[in-house]
C-alpha cells in the first residue's frame, strides 16, 4: 500500500452524482479503479437497477452479491454490487430481526413494490443503508473490509433527497426501527468519511445543475466533495489563433500555403476556407468552456479534468481515466 497524500484521505464513502449524459457511471468506475490501485480493496455500488457497471466492464448482469470485477493498476481489487432493494430488505430483516421467512412473505405480498410506489424514501433508506453497512463492515481483525466504497448515485436533481434519508422518512416514521436505521445511515452520510462528487461537462446546463446541486447539498448539511469535469478536449491551437478565429480574422492564406506544403494542393484554398470555419467554431466552443470553468470555480471545491476518450469508453479507456484521477490527486 502506498502512502501518497490525496485530496480525499480519510474519506471512505465516495458518492458520485451528475446530470444524465455526463458519464457518471464511467467516472464512478474509474474512481473505484484509482482508489483501489496500490493494493487496496474498493467496492463499487450501483443502485438504479440499470446494470451500468456490468456494461462498462463488459460483464454479464451483476447479481445482488459483492464480487470482484477488476484488478487495479499495481495491485488492488475492485468489487461490485448492484443493490436490489427487495434483497436488501430481506437481508436487513434477517440481520436485525432473524426474520427471513416473514420477509419472504412480505416480498411476495409486494411490499417492496408498494413501498417504492408510495414512499420512495423507504427504497432510498434500504439502498443507502446497505451501502453504509458496507462502509462500516469490519473483518475479524477489526479492520474495515473495504478501504473505500464508491456509490454510483442517482442524478444531481435527486441527490440531496436521496442522501437526506432521515428527512425523507421523518414524516413517515417518527419512531421505530426505520427511524433508528435512517438515523444510523444519516450519521455515516453526514460524517467526514463521506464526500459527494459531482460529474459535469463544460456545458451550460450540466454546470448550472452542478452548482445548484452543490448549494442544495450544503444547505442539507451534506458534505460536497470534488468536481470532475468530464470529456475535456485538449486544446490544440494557440490562444492567439483562437482569438483571431473568433473575430473572423484567421489567416486563410497562410493556412492555404501550409496545406500546399503538406501536399494537399488540390483545391487548397477551398479546403482552407472550410477548415477556418471549423477553427472558428472550435474557438467559440473554447470561449464558452472558459466561461463555464469560471462558473464552476465559484463553488470553491477541488476540481479535476478527465479527457474525452475519442474511441469511446472501453476498459482501457477506464484505466486511462483512473490514471488521470490519480495523477491529479483525487485518489
Amino acid at each position, binding site marked *: 500500500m502506498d502512502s501518497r497524500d490525496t485530496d480525499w484521505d480519510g474519506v471512505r464513502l465516495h458518492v458520485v452524482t451528475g446530470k444524465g*449524459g*455526463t458519464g457518471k457511471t464511467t467516472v464512478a468506475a474509474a474512481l473505484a479503479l484509482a482508489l483501489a490501485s496500490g493494493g487496496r480493496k474498493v467496492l463499487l455500488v450501483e443502485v438504479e437497477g440499470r446494470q451500468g457497471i456490468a456494461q462498462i466492464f463488459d460483464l454479464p448482469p451483476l447479481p445482488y452479491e459483492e464480487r470482484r470485477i477488476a484488478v487495479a493498476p499495481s495491485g488492488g481489487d475492485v468489487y461490485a454490487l448492484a443493490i436490489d432493494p427487495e434483497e436488501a430488505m430481506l437481508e436487513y430483516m434477517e440481520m436485525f430481526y432473524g426474520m427471513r421467512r416473514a420477509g419472504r412473505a412480505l416480498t411476495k405480498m409486494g411490499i417492496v413494490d*408498494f413501498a417504492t410506489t408510495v414512499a420512495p424514501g423507504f427504497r432510498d433508506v434500504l439502498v443507502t443503508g446497505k451501502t453504509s453497512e458496507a462502509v462500516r463492515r469490519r473483518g475479524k481483525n477489526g479492520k474495515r473490509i473495504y478501504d473505500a466504497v464508491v456509490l454510483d448515485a442517482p442524478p444531481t436533481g435527486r441527490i440531496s433527497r436521496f442522501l437526506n434519508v432521515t428527512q425523507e422518512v421523518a414524516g413517515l416514521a417518527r419512531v421505530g426501527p426505520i427511524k433508528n436505521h435512517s438515523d444510523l445511515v444519516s450519521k455515516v452520510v453526514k460524517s467526514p468519511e463521506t464526500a459527494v462528487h459531482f460529474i459535469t461537462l463544460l456545458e451550460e446546463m450540466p454546470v448550472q445543475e452542478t452548482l445548484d446541486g452543490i448549494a442544495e447539498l450544503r444547505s442539507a448539511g451534506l458534505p460536497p466533495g470534488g468536481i470532475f469535469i468530464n470529456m475535456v478536449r485538449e486544446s*490544440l491551437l494557440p490562444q492567439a489563433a483562437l482569438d483571431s478565429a473568433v473575430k473572423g480574422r484567421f489567416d486563410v492564406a497562410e493556412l492555404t500555403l501550409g496545406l500546399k506544403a503538406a501536399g494537399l494542393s488540390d483545391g487548397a484554398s477551398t479546403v482552407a476556407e472550410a477548415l477556418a470555419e471549423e477553427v472558428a467554431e472550435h474557438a467559440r466552443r473554447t470561449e464558452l468552456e472558459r466561461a463555464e470553468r469560471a462558473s464552476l470555480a465559484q463553488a470553491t471545491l477541488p476540481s479535476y479534468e478527465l479527457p474525452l476518450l475519442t474511441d469511446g469508453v472501453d476498459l482501457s479507456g477506464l484505466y486511462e481515466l483512473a490514471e488521470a484521477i490519480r495523477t491529479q490527486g483525487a485518489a
Partner: protein
Amino acid sequence: MKKPPVLDVDAILDDQGTRIIVCCGAGGVGKTTTAAALGLRAAERGRCAVVLTVDPARRLAQSMGLTELDNTPRLISSPEGGGQLFAMMLDMKRTFDEIIEAHADPERARQILSNPFYQSLSSSFAGTQEYMAMEKLGQLRRSDEWDLIIVDTPPSRSALDFLDAPERLGRFLDGRFIRLLTAPAKAGGRSAFRLLNAGFGLMAGAMTKLLGAQVIKDLQTFVSALDAVFGGFRQRAEMTYRLLQAPGTAFVVVAAPERDAMREASYFVERLAEERMPLAGLVVNRVHEPTAAALSAARSAAAAEDLESRGEHELTAAVLRLHTGRMQLAAREHREQDHFLSAHPTVPVVQVRAMSEDVHDLAGLRRIGELLATST
C-alpha cells in the same frame, strides 16, 4: 448504409390532425429544447400550441422570456398568422392535490392531503411525476383550448417509465398488499383479518416490527382514504394511454449520437411498436458535421505528421490535427447511429447539428426549429 427516410417535421406540425406530440428519449439529449423548438415553430406556422414540460430548468423558461414556468399555461408568443405559443411546467404536487380535491368529498380530501404518506407520494420524484404528466396531458387535451399539445417526458431512470405509469398504477391498485391493507376497512373492522391466510399474523408482526405501529396506522388510513378516489385515477390513466395510441398523436424519439442514447432510442422505438403507439420518427441532436468533410481523417493526420516532422507550418499542422479529431468524432457518431438505422431502416430520421452555444432566447429556439425542419 442506405439513407433512412427524412422526418418531415413541418408536415407533422401543419397537419391539423396532429393534436399531441410526445418527445421522449434518454436524459440529457435535449428533449425539452426540442419540444420547445417544435412548439415555437408550430405557433409560427399558425397552430395554437402549448408546450408541457416536466424539466424544472429555469433556462428554458428564460429562453421563452419568462422568469419561471408554473402549472398554468402562460402565453409566450403570438406570432403573425394567428398562431400562439403557450408553455407550462408540471407541478406534480399541485396536480395531484387538485385531483384529490376534485374527486373526494371535503372531509376525505382533508384526510388524504394531511397524511404523511400522501405527502411523501405526491412530492417525491420517482413515479408520481409520470402519473401526473399523463394526467396533465389528459386534462389539457380534454380542455380543447389548444389544437396542439407538445409534451416532453420526465427525466426518469428509463425513458420508458412514463409509458408504464398507467399499467403500474393498475398493478399497484390490484396489488395483494394494498388489498390486505384495505380489507379491514372494507369488511368493517378486524374480522376481515381472519379471512386471510394463516401467515398474516406472522406478517403483521413482522411489519409492525419493521415499520413501527404508527406507520402501519398511517398507511392504513392513507390507503383506505385514497381507495375511494383510486377508481377514477385508474380510469383516467387508461384513457390517457388510449389517447396516446390514437392517430392524432405523434411520438418523436430524441437522441444524441452516443451509444447509450441511441440504444435507449432503439428500445423506445421497439416499445412504441409493441404498444401500438404512433411513431413519427427520430431526432438526433448534437451531430457534428465537419465543414471540411472532403478532407479525410487519414489524409489530414498524415499531412499533419508530415508538417510536424519537417517542423514547418506549425499552425496548419495544429488545424489539421483539430480536423482529424473532428472527422474521427463524426465517424464515431455515424457508427453509433448505424446500429439504430440498420435495426430500424424505415424510421424517419432528422439530424440537428451541434451548436457551439446553448439556446438563450426565442431566436435560438427558432434556429433549432429551422434545423429540425430543413436538414434534408
